[in-house]
């Protein structure tokens, strides 16, 4: 349905490349941010067992 809606909307089709780039930047930054925060938590638990 989303594909149909996007395809029928000429304005969105014209800027599809820009939308893709924005999507990539958000995906990359979000993933990198969460990986860095995971690294911080890892520093505090790496020598401890996962569960009791």
């Amino acid at each position, binding site marked *: *349905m989303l594909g149909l809606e996007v*395809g029928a909307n000429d304005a969105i089709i014209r800027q599809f490349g820009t939308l893709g780039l924005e999507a990539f930047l958000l995906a990359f930054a979000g*993933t990198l941010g969460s990986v860095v*925060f*995971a690294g911080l938590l890892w520093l505090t638990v790496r020598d401890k067992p996962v*569960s009791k």
Partner: protein
Amino acid sequence: MKGSLIILSFFAIGLLLGISRFFPVEVLNYNISFYVLCGLMFSVGISIGNDPSSFRQFRNLNPRLIFLPLMTILGTWLGVLAVSFFLKNRTMADCLAVGSGFGYYSLSSILITQCKGVELGTIALLSNIMREVMTLLFAPWMVRYFGKLAPICAGGATTMDTTFPIIIRTSGKDYAIVSIYQGFIMDFTVPFLVTFFCSL
């Protein structure tokens, strides 16, 4: 990966049908997305509620690992907020709504399309699929440089299903329960956070 490609293929087919005007545009006025969303929310509820044994296993987790979903959320928000300064057409709330999909592209794209329109819905779909693909491709690299929790945080809401196998392979079997815990909590939070940021 296969699941993402199938979803992308359906998106591409819909796109081509829309461009060619093969389907009358009036079809879109029936609000089919809303009914699909209702079905999706129903299945999310079932998947969260059908395994009470998971709750008991979560209680045995190292107490610090309880904060893993929180680290995923905070890290993601910080990342997308940084990017939002460079995206002139998007508000911070738009970027946070897209980021709060945490890889759950089906649910977040439908929710965002309903609230914010098809343009941001498209960004949400593509962005969350990209997050899943990045996790699948770069999990070994993440473990090497950021530790065994990194692919779990990167996987976001997908760590109970599509990215689970790669997490087990790269972080080790010990982290299976952590991965399930993370997926469980994130699956639950995505609809609330996405709806919240859409309402701002």
